[in-house]
């Protein structure tokens, strides 16, 4: 029973030590997106800018529309596909006041413009290379957006990001053990010393017994 108590006590000490070191760290966030600024004009999609940045993507696959998007790898494999609303259309709703002000009705208006700027935010997948945008009504390809330049710039700025470096073949992902710095490091060293002291105390106690 005493041995069990001591073991539990030691575990408790370890938890007390590890808690302040590990528990206070906010989670690392490596989520990335591609932000595409595009323009559609007279049926032609033009690319204004494509940049990769840190951030979380919106939900895809719930939108209805006449544009179909396909994300592909550099080898042309489909990663994800979804429909997109045609940005040239907007749905207006207005109120109509009839004979007297208490009788309200609603009218709709589809607003169409030949040209529209629009922004698409795409999630980043490993080996993601292109987005094909096609017109569902005609089946014609509106635009292939190539992400390689944006991804290249991102990799140059963040070469050690665990999610962007190309991995030749299989790579075992072992989390890097990082030594905390400053106050935390000192705390850890002293904590380890105290753990060692406790363990030595237990060993001495049971050897004598």
């Amino acid at each position, binding site marked *: 029973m005493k041995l069990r108590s001591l073991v539990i006590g030691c575990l408790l000490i370890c938890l007390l030590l590890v808690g302040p070191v590990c528990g206070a760290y906010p989670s690392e966030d490596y989520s990335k*997106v591609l932000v595409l600024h595009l323009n559609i004009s007279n049926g032609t999609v033009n690319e204004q800018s494509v940049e990769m940045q840190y951030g979380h993507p919106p939900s895809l696959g*719930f939108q209805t529309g006449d544009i179909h998007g396909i994300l592909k790898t550099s080898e042309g494999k489909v990663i994800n596909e979804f429909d997109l609303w045609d940005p040239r259309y907007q749905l207006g709703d207005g109120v109509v006041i009839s004979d007297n002000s208490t009788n309200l009705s609603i009218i709709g208006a589809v607003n169409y413009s030949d040209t529209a700027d629009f922004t698409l935010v795409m999630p980043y997948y490993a080996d993601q290379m292109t987005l094909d945008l096609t017109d569902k009504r005609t089946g014609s390809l509106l635009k292939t957006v190539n992400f390689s330049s944006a991804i290249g710039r991102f990799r140059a700025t963040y070469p050690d990001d665990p999610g962007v470096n190309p991995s030749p073949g299989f790579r075992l992902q072992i989390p890097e053990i990082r030594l905390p710095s400053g106050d935390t490091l000192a705390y850890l060293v002293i*904590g380890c010393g105290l753990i060692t002291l406790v363990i030595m105390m237990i060993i001495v106690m049971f050897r004598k017994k």
Partner: protein
Amino acid sequence: MADNTPDFPVRGCGSHRNRFSCARILFVLILVSLILYPVLAAPSAGPENMSGIVWEKTFGQHIQGSGHAVIMTNNGGVAATGEVLGADGIPRLSVVTADGNGNLLWEYVGGEGTYEGNSLMQTPDGGFIVAGSSGDGVRTGVLLLKLDSGGRIEWNRTFLAGTSGQADAIRITSDGGYVIAGSVQGDSGPGSSNWDGYILKTDDQGIEEWSRFFKGVKNDYCTAIEQTPDDGFIVEGTTDSYGTGGNETFLVQLNAHGDEGWFTTFGGQGYDRGIGFSRMADGGFTVATLSCNPSDAATNCTLGVIRTDSRGNELGRTVIPVPRGADGTAFATSAGGSGAIAFSTGGDGSNQTGGEVLLTVLDDTGAILSSGSYLSPDGLAVSGIAVAGDNYAITGSGTGASAGHGPVIMLIGTGRETPGLLAPTQPAETGPGDLRVTVREADTGEIATDALVYLDGSAAGLTSESEGNILLQHVSEGGHSIRVTRDGFAETTKTVDIEGNQNLTVFLSPSKVIPVIVNGPPEGKIDVVFVASKTQYDCTNQEKVATDTYTANRTLFQQDVSNLISDNYLSLDQYTSGQIGLPSDYKDRFNFYYYWDKDNFADAFDGCAGTLPDHFWENAPFADVVIIVYPTYTGLYSGTCQPDGCASGLGLGTHSWVKIPADGGKLILHESGHAIFGLIDAYCGDTYYTEDDPFPNVWSTGAACSKASTSWNTSTCKQITGPALSPGSASCSKQFWEYDPEPNIMGVGVYSYFGKFGEAETTRIDYIFNNIGGVKKA
């Protein structure tokens, strides 16, 4: 012998009986110490205390003398330059050097015609280069003087660019030459009396390579200069010709050939004077400017320490009141970027007990780290200061009764280094290849603790709770990226070029995306972001009008957003069909935010659905749906007015937003029916119809509608038709069928107190809730 052993048991730890008791005590002690350790070990916060004056001395036995500039030398001593007045009554340039204990090593006094030294640097050969003024008896100009390490003259040059002139700053350039910032008068020809800034570049022998003038219609002065890594230059000065009026401090960029790049001024309505600046590791600058009220300049001055980006755009400033009666002010930074300001008071010559020197120590962002006051026996009136580690050398003139015969130098130590012999001029905080990253809040300048710092994209750790920084060790030379994230702040990435050891300060601005109700990561939720509009619509005059209802009242916008959320999204169970129902935790499947950029608001009446603030998607890429809220319509609404609600997008996802008035009743639910749930208008009008699978709310045939539910049939599914909206027009009829009866929120019931989403619409809403983020209904 009597047994003196007491008859109570000995409570020692040697016996087996007591070993476990002792172990328990020890165990408890260790446990208590572990629990208390984080508290006891926490470093104390707050300003450090300065230890005091290490020494103060007056160097020379002249009639008068004063130091204008001081540096720390590479052998741990100090050197100062200034002027002395000899028996002949003619001022001459003076240079003195002393060891770390204040013992004079040598004194150099210039020949006739050398008037003063205003800046000096130690050269790689151990000698000194001094800049000041000299003249030929008729004109004065910029003096450049080279001394060897023993105080012997090697050469001197005088540059007469006008009738009068002087150098105020000198720097050794990357090619081994020198660059000087100063001012000249009368350089524009006979009769010209304005002062102009003057930049002179020479080779290592003081031979002119090029010179430039900073000219305006009034007086302008160049007083400080630094070389940038691209071999260009940044010059600080004071201008009366440019800016918003009155004297203002300026920075101007020159390339390696002296051609002007960007230019910026700092100041206001008072008299501003640049007194020094430094370049920070991130390429930005810390600029010190002395501002005085023109009506009371003697007693109403402040010193502003301004942080700028790499093009001189102001990011923030720390304002430090100048003590009343101050007779000297000086500013300097160390090689590591930390700065110091010295003020002197009371040294007016009548004070027999000397004057007071006030020292304020700044970090590399201009934020105050500590301050202290020191009684100067010689009544030091401050002219120059130098910083090396925790030591501060201050020079000026002695105004006390027993002083005034030469430059006075005071050495102050802060106690972290051994007083006496000074530490080397390199910052002691970091080792080779170390990068210390300090994170601060841009709004307040306060340190930001627990900010997560990434080096080149990989997490490196958190900033410390005591100092808001983290030391990144052994960072290789060359370019690196530092990304910093912290809850409530917009993440920031800085690129830094590492050369040896450096300090970098990253400023975090408050996030433009403010959480209202967040139930989990964006990927698993419907993320709704509200944005305030800067416009509304006047239906009487049929025109868009600007409004500051929200832009000037963030609290009102917050309240309206809160009401819209609680009255609509979190009350959806009241507005949907009880027959179908919603997931019991549907409220938890939303995340709500609002977006606030004080310089960028939405325009609800730029097109049907309005336009979002610039860079919205970069700041809120995760937004599934954006709601532009405008205060209200003004004037009398009629059918010919702008739509009061509009959706750009059918279904949540990228680039989907709507506009609604804050007082539009269920219109927000109608537009959200479009933009979040992909519902189609159920009223008859000039709108958009499609059978939006799965679980549509309108169908392209009556048969398809009746098949949608076993409880529906062709009699319950009805074609979308409607009355004529104006006399004489045809009745409306569409080739689409719907099931949900009026008052229907997707139909005309949007304006009815009793309007609800019907069974078909609720089925679609339920489908979206159950599939967002891959969540499946149990």
